[in-house]
């Protein structure tokens, strides 16, 4: 539910004299840029003189450009933000123009202040007080434009972005949901007038599913439309490989959501860790670590290594690299790809700047003992003597060697003899075939039950009590506070 203007020079227009520009205000809306570079300006919103002679406030593109800035013209000087937002064609963004009633005029995109212009709007006279959308270039769709005589907080703006009605007292609120929908839904009657033809367009995706964590950002792949970067392992057990560039320069800050790994397809029992680092060559800094196990060579798993709490610690304009280390000595090459969102993030996805870590780290998974009889619990094996901080457990690496059999593993905290089970994971070993991902079981609801100085132990149960029965485990976690 959104609309678009049909041809060049069409526009929406209304008398905007209802707005007091000497006091605080916020103007918001959704927009989705078209693919064609304008000839002229792509005006998402304009207050004042749309013809550009008298003073105006402007949210739109540079001349003949696909960018987006906030600007004002006071009749003498034209001042614009140095920051230009680059809309992604086909992806809705939520914009806001916010003034604090004194001197701060904010350029806000997707809930983040990109730049603040310092200006006292009470010192500017607006001989013309029109609101307008469109004009010289119209290939964009838009919806849910609201005008508020108040300085909405960023939280309020984000909440408003997900609502089809005004959540704060509004001077005007126009859903612009379909072709003939020009009406203001407030009692103020600030309807739009139309010059041209308004057509219906696909609208933004709103969080109509409650407050479950979500995002409408597109997920990106690195390297895009290409196989992963090749990493040659170090021959030394758990020794690091060289760093390999994944992306030379990020074009936006990243939210890293996971890796996609293809092993060498040659060696069995490949327990491994992959570091993600940022920085120039030879100056890389590790920002997070993934861990997994490829059990067999005749069959393999799809190599998906999600980060259940995605990493928010990769900035714009930085080099991203990966390196690996593993248990055995093979130097056959692997490939590594990544998935990420570009910031700013629309939604309420939980992220953290904290790196993923693992127990054990740079060492072989911990071998657990097996129960004496079918489904009898083993004794506990200590995994961690004492956690340095409170931790959030985001997943577990499980590596089973046995005949076909079902297994359970209990994770517990507490002193020896006083363990309390906090997680039980079920697994099955076919003896010949691999399991989900590189044997990494993600906890979609990460476990937040492990305080600082906790002893962590594990025990197993299995369906059979014959032959060689072994389960190896490792834990993947983030330290608190997130």
């Amino acid at each position: 539910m959104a609309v678009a203007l049909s041809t060049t020079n069409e526009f929406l227009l209304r008398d905007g004299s209802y707005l007091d520009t000497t006091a605080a205000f916020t103007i918001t809306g959704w927009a989705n840029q078209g693919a064609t570079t304008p000839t002229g300006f792509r005006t998402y919103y304009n207050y004042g003189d749309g013809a550009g002679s008298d003073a105006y406030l402007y949210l739109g593109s540079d001349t003949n450009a696909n960018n987006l800035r906030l600007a004002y013209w006071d009749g003498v000087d034209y001042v614009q933000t140095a920051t230009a937002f680059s809309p992604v064609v086909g992806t809705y963004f939520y914009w806001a123009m916010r003034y604090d009633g004194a001197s701060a005029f904010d350029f806000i995109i997707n809930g983040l202040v990109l730049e603040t212009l310092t200006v006292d709007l009470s010192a500017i006279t607006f001989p013309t007080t029109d609101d307008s959308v469109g004009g010289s270039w119209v290939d964009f769709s838009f919806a849910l434009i609201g005008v508020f005589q108040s300085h909405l907080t960023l939280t309020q703006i984000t909440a408003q972005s997900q609502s089809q009605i005004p959540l704060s007292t509004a001077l005007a609120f126009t859903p612009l949901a379909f072709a003939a929908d020009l009406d203001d839904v407030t009692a103020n009657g600030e309807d739009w007038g139309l010059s041209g033809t308004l057509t219906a367009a696909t609208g933004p995706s709103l969080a109509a599913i409650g407050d479950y964590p979500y995002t409408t950002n597109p997920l990106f792949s690195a390297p895009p439309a290409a196989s992963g970067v090749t990493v040659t392992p170090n021959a030394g057990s758990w020794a690091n490989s060289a760093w390999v560039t994944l992306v030379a320069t990020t074009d936006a800050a990243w939210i890293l959501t996971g890796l996609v790994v293809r092993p060498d397809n040659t060696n069995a029992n490949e327990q491994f860790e992959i570091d993600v680092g940022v920085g120039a060559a030879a100056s890389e800094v590790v920002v997070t670590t993934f861990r997994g196990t490829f059990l067999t060579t005749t069959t393999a798993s799809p190599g998906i290594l999600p980060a259940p709490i995605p990493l928010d610690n990769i900035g714009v304009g930085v080099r991203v690299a990966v390196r690996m280390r593993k248990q055995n000595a093979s130097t056959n090459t692997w490939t590594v790809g990544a998935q990420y969102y570009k910031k700013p993030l629309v939604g309420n996805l939980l992220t953290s700047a904290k790196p993923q870590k693992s127990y054990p780290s740079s060492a072989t998974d911990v071998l657990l003992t097996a129960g004496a009889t079918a489904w009898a619990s083993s004794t506990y094996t200590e995994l961690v003597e004492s956690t340095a901080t409170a931790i959030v457990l985001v997943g577990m690496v499980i590596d089973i060697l046995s005949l076909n059999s079902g297994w359970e593993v209990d994770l517990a905290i507490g002193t020896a003899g006083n363990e309390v089970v906090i997680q039980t994971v079920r697994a099955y070993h076919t003896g010949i075939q691999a399991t989900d991902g590189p044997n990494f079981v993600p906890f979609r609801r990460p476990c937040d039950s492990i305080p600082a100085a906790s002893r962590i132990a594990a025990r197993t149960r299995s369906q059979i009590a014959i032959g060689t029965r072994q389960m190896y485990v490792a834990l993947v976690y983030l330290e608190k506070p997130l």
Partner: protein
Amino acid sequence: MSILTTAPLKVWPAAADSITVASGAGAGVLGAWVEIIPAGSILVPISIAGVCAELFVSALTNGQTTEIQFGLGTAGTEVSISDPLIVVASAGNLIQEIQMFLVPIGGIPAGARLAMRSRTLSGNIPSKFALMYYESLDEDPTMLAHTTYAPYSNGSNINGASVTPSGTAWANSSWVEFIDLGASSALLGVGLSYASGAYDGIEYEVDLGAGDAGSEVVLTTLRGTFSNIGVQGYMDLWLPTVFPISDDTRIAFRLRKAGTSTTATTAHLLYVYAIPSEDIVIDGLSMLCDVGQLTINGSGFTDTMTIAVQGPSGVLAYSVISIAPTQIVLGIDNLVTGVYCVDLSA
């Protein structure tokens, strides 16, 4: 809400062999409901976090998916709560034995009897399953209680929608339609089958897009890899979190990959949708309409009460999921928008 939880992850059946659930007698036919959790066994509400599958692989064609469905109610009156089905795994070299759902399946009341049934392209496949679940998970009350998983099934072809890759490495296939999603839906990801060795050792990307045919716009992109020779099977690629869809939207996908094979493969869309619910209070009683469930809150209820349910199409059959002094939960198939009336008499 936060996705962090202090609720322990548990297993059913605990310390016991997995439970056999046979698929139906024909291709894509659902089998009989099989009791997983007996009534009265779990005393608090639970949410299913994932499954562990032991597929009867010798009877399945490589790449063939197995789909499961959960239901509540007494034997013979089960009502589905995950409609239509959840793809859990496939035969072949690539078996996703542990499947942790992106969003746990909630809305399972205390004391309820939980059942499961399955279907495959081959009939009568007796695979085994165990569940992982949370007790009293701090769920989103507006989403999880009204949500069902609904992987797209391409008509009678339960292996999904077929796509033919481009013969040029990393060039896009044509867009293939999945489904028109209604408002209040959310994308969860995409699942891809590899029934052939034609994709050995290659990497790939899947775009999910929205829009009319010929005007699709990429919503998001998922990446995967077929990591070894002879890999055949099925893999779910989950998004990091849900991607809400607010309007009626046609969803399509396209595939690009390394290599030049043009051997077709199939894909499933993974998504959830919310069913609006109203909580109407009359004379101290409230009635909540949920996915396959009607919940009546009040007081003085007993398990000897006579219950009759009238719906938009007349008297409705139902199953009693649970009766407590302050709450009755009924299971009713195919709930539709309309007025419902429940007669309760001692």
